């Protein structure tokens, strides 16, 4: 059964779309990640134009993260002040990102920039995750090993505009979360991701936030940043496909519920290693696309369209 998508202007199998939503939703339920880093490349691979994939995926992430954000908010796991500073950065970064996306599309360089961003950021995060999970699997076998310092003083702790974040028990420069937010916002707009996979490690290792508020605060700002990307992609570029979004959202919310239940039963350390393998897999695919000799060095682009 096929459905013609009004904005992507291609015909796709409904079952493939629902399955894609469910599959990625399940992953995100199991691993507690948004899944944008899987969904956007898969959509592009299936023939959805890159701008439509990015714009529509932002819309889907709004749906998939809003209930989680609300749940964490009710349980008071959100550092609102930190969230707002991150959000201001995120709005600036994503607004700039959407314009940059359009500019790069016109230059014909958007595909290469998207792939480079995936290779660099998934590569770094995947390698870190693999290292951490191998280390912790190793540690559970050899008990009693390794403890590290709780807080290290680095150069960025000397920056001006210090601000107190009570919920996170931090007194740091506001420029720091602002910059983290802006970078993640930029990536959200360019890569069609929520950016949690960068936001979470950045909050823990760069900002030094306690893990109890990290997930909630990250989800809080992802909802608003992806909503901003959705709005701007729709407003400036008309690249949000409601019908595509509908199928992905329906598949996604069901898959996420199943995944959450499944994830609770699976061993955490090995799960994290699996996630790392997946992140590195996507990164590898993008790298191959960049360096392998293309089937056809020529490509067509409609001027004034997407």
């Amino acid at each position, binding site marked *: 059964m096929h459905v013609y998508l009004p904005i992507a202007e291609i015909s796709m199998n409904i079952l493939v779309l629902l399955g894609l939503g469910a599959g990625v939703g399940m992953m995100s339920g199991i691993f507690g990640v948004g899944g944008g880093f899987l969904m956007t490349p898969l959509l592009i691979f299936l023939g959805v134009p890159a701008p439509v994939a990015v714009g529509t995926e932002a819309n889907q992430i709004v749906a998939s993260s809003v209930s989680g954000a609300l749940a964490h908010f009710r349980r008071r796991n959100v550092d609102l002040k930190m969230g707002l500073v991150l959000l201001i950065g995120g709005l600036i970064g994503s607004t700039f990102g959407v314009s940059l996306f359009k500019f790069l599309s016109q230059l014909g360089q958007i595909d290469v920039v998207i792939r480079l961003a995936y290779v660099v950021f998934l590569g770094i995060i995947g390698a870190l995750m693999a290292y951490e999970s191998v280390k912790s699997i190793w540690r559970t076998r050899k008990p009693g090993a390794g403890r590290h310092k709780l807080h290290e003083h680095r150069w960025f702790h000397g920056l001006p505009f210090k601000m107190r974040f009570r919920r996170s028990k931090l007194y740091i420069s506001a420029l720091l979360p602002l910059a983290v937010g802006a970078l993640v916002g930029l990536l959200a707009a360019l890569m069609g991701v929520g950016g949690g996979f960068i936001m979470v490690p950045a909050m823990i290792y760069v900002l030094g936030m306690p893990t109890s508020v990290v997930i909630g605060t990250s989800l809080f700002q992802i909802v608003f940043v992806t909503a901003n990307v959705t709005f*701007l992609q729709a*407003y400036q570029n008309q690249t949000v496909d409601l019908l595509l979004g509908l199928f992905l959202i329906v598949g996604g919310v069901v898959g996420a519920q199943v995944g959450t239940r499944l994830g609770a039963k699976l061993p955490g350390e090995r799960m994290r290693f699996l996630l790392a393998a997946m992140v590195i897999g996507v990164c590898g695919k993008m790298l191959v696309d960049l360096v392998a000799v293309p089937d056809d060095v020529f490509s067509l*682009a409609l001027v004034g369209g997407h």
Partner: protein
Amino acid sequence: MKRLLSALVLALAAAPPAAAEQPLVADLSEHLVRITMGFEGAELLLFGAVEGDGHVVVLVHGPLETLTVRRKARTAGIWMNRDEMTFEDVPAFYQVMATAQPGAWLPDAVRERHQIGVAHLELPPARDPRRAIDPAAAEAFRDALIRRKQELGHYGAAVGSVKMLSARLFRSDVAFPTNVPTGRYTVEVLLVRDGEVISAQSTPLQVSKIGVLAEIFDFAHNYAALYGLFAIVFAVLAGLGANAAFRKV
């Protein structure tokens, strides 16, 4: 379609002698290709009659668009777009069908004048190109445009067939793939006799999104800000709704 055809046969048989003086009559079974939600391509029937012998050539021209052709080159180990060339007034869709494969009966001058075959398609380079391209490279870009369009199914890779049903009647199936560009098309029918086009007729054809699809598309383009807000509200409600529904299960 069968009924339509037999109706046509009857109509032509009963036609008054005056109509017989017209050497070529042709029409499409429909003048609108509707792209609906379940669209999986379309096929129209082109039918007509000729007076006397000769070959029938059918040309399907899509709306004109501006296309940029880009060529990747390896830069620091990475394949990225380097050179580009923009073409204006490129038909978004182009198909040729004929009662016989082009041969001596179709002189080059006629092919040139009527743009029969991709080799004779007019693909004018943009008047104000950002970067100048030397003629040899321009040829490669033109070839690439045609090749990629053929891979998309927008340009016919070969000359399709027009069947003669009798000495006078002909028919042809005009196929449109699922990714057919929307807009105003022209279907041109030519009668070639003794190396000359002795009669020509052109019929308009519209390819449009219809119904819910058209409404979503118009909403996205005419009320872009509202559409963006709607998309967000929809996503928020869907996310919260699904969560509430599953909590009860």
